[in-house]
């Protein structure tokens, strides 16, 4: 192990030394610039792993590491190109000559409201976020979105009073805040979009009737006896029940299978 480490060090000098700087033999490194300082990091790592390799420790600005939570937005630029790029540090693989900066948080205005009181009119959203009308359609928000959300599209939809369209267009938003960081109108797009989705869900989206029926059944006590029976069972008996349970066969045609026991349907 010691020899291997030595060999690697000889092959790739100036390797960053974090507390987990274990470079496999023969691994190729590439130069990246983190906040302006050069580090040589193994290729194939994500930006987040590369930064950890370089010795950075994420106390905040890292969450799920699965591209969902929106905690690790990154801005980067390739050497020699004016173009800014945006991504999530946990999802984007490092490339040579990347200039990297993390934007874990960006201050953005967030309005307070009571969802049960504001109603379904777009005017309520306009009143809570009048800065919506500072949009000049520069589209920097859309260009910054690591989830490819049409941010200008949903902001425009809200100006047009179309909450449903805004809710649908912003569905993939992970609240990373990069849109707001780029906005010359100082608009907190992602907070407004979240409000739009809440209003949509609370007032506009059709209710699931079968869910209400089922909730009523539960409240009527239809399943109480079954639950009590299960609660009274010992571990072995529960396991037996689980193993022997009736189960819809994989790949059975939709709507064709019925359990033998139908009293709980």
């Amino acid at each position, binding site marked *: 192990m010691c020899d291997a480490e030595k060999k690697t060090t000889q092959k790739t000098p100036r390797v960053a030394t974090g507390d987990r700087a274990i470079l496999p033999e023969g691994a190729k490194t590439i130069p990246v610039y983190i906040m302006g300082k050069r580090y040589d990091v193994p290729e194939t790592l994500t930006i987040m792993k590369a930064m950890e390799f370089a010795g950075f420790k994420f106390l905040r600005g890292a969450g799920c590491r699965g591209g969902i939570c929106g905690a690790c937005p990154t801005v980067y630029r390739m050497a020699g190109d004016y173009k800014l790029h945006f991504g999530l540090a946990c999802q984007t693989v490092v490339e040579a000559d990347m200039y990297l900066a993390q934007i874990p948080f960006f201050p953005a205005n967030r309005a307070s409201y009571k969802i049960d009181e504001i109603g379904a009119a777009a005017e309520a959203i306009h009143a809570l976020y009048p800065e919506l009308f500072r949009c000049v359609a520069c589209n920097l928000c859309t260009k910054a979105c690591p989830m490819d959300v049409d941010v200008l599209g949903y902001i425009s939809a809200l100006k*047009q009073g179309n909450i449903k369209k805004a809710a649908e267009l912003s569905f993939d938003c992970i609240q990373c805040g990069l849109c707001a960081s780029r906005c010359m109108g100082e608009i907190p797009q992602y907070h407004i979009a979240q409000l739009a989705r809440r209003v949509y869900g609370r007032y506009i989206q059709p209710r699931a009737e079968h869910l209400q029926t089922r909730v009523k059944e539960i409240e009527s006590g239809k399943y109480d006896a079954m639950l009590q029976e299960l609660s009274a069972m010992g571990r072995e008996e529960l396991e037996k029940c689980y193993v022997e349970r009736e189960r819809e066969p994989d790949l059975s045609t939709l709507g064709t299978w019925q359990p033998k026991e139908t009293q709980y349907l």
Partner: protein
Amino acid sequence: MKISYYPGCTLKTKAGNLETAALASLLALGIEVEEIDRWNCCGAVFSLTADDLIHQVGPVRNLIRAKEQGANKLVTLCSMCYNTLARANLIMKNDPVKRDTINRFMDDEIDYAGEVEVVHLLTFLDQEVGWERIREMVKVPLEGLRIAPYYGCTLQRPADVGIEPFGSFSLMTRLFESLGATVMPFAAADKCCGSYQILNGEDGAQSTAATILKSAAEAGAEALATSCPLCEYNLGKQQGKLLENGLIGTTVPTYYFTQLLAIALGVAPESCRFDLNDGAALDLLKNKNCLVAA
């Protein structure tokens, strides 16, 4: 015939009546309307600062959307949308330096050089449909309705985007004559409605609006037609207050020109959204027997 259409934000909210009546009319005239995809705000007010190019980006982006969809003409209804789009288009057509700056900034879009022509619906009706054709299509002539064509500011100013020369009101005049109405020219047809002054200078805006409405009434008009949601707001939606404050003596119902067109073409009143007008607007048409039986 098929046209590319830019609605504008207000036509999707407070001025829904301007749009629904226009769409119903175009349907009745056999014209297919395609709303452009992914449009944004027109810019609302054209920026007069010569180097303030960022405020041209919004309107230009809409023109690019039209170009992307293969349109060579983009039809608008709202006077203000027409004005901002047409003026931004002129910059892109005629000013190579500004055009280059804007195209470079919008490097996420295809280049644009004024290829799409911005056309107001009134001009479209004149050039592509024709007043004779409209006259033939009228099912319910607006007989006895004395209507004042009100242009406000942005349909005619500045001259290089005006739908017709300053001081001339022939497009609306010929439209309403084709519909069987009596056109009442009046002195304040191109005076400002008070515009956004209604927000922070209500008194001034109200007296301006009152001057226009009185001028129309004195000329013998019993109603006023416009193509601008802001004019309609100041002249129509404020009338209750104007009466209350004694600034005007009689009500002068205001319509969008598209509503009168639709009614004359036999469109059901429900499609004209008179619920968004003052109550007097629908009553006047009822009294004139201009509505098709429900």
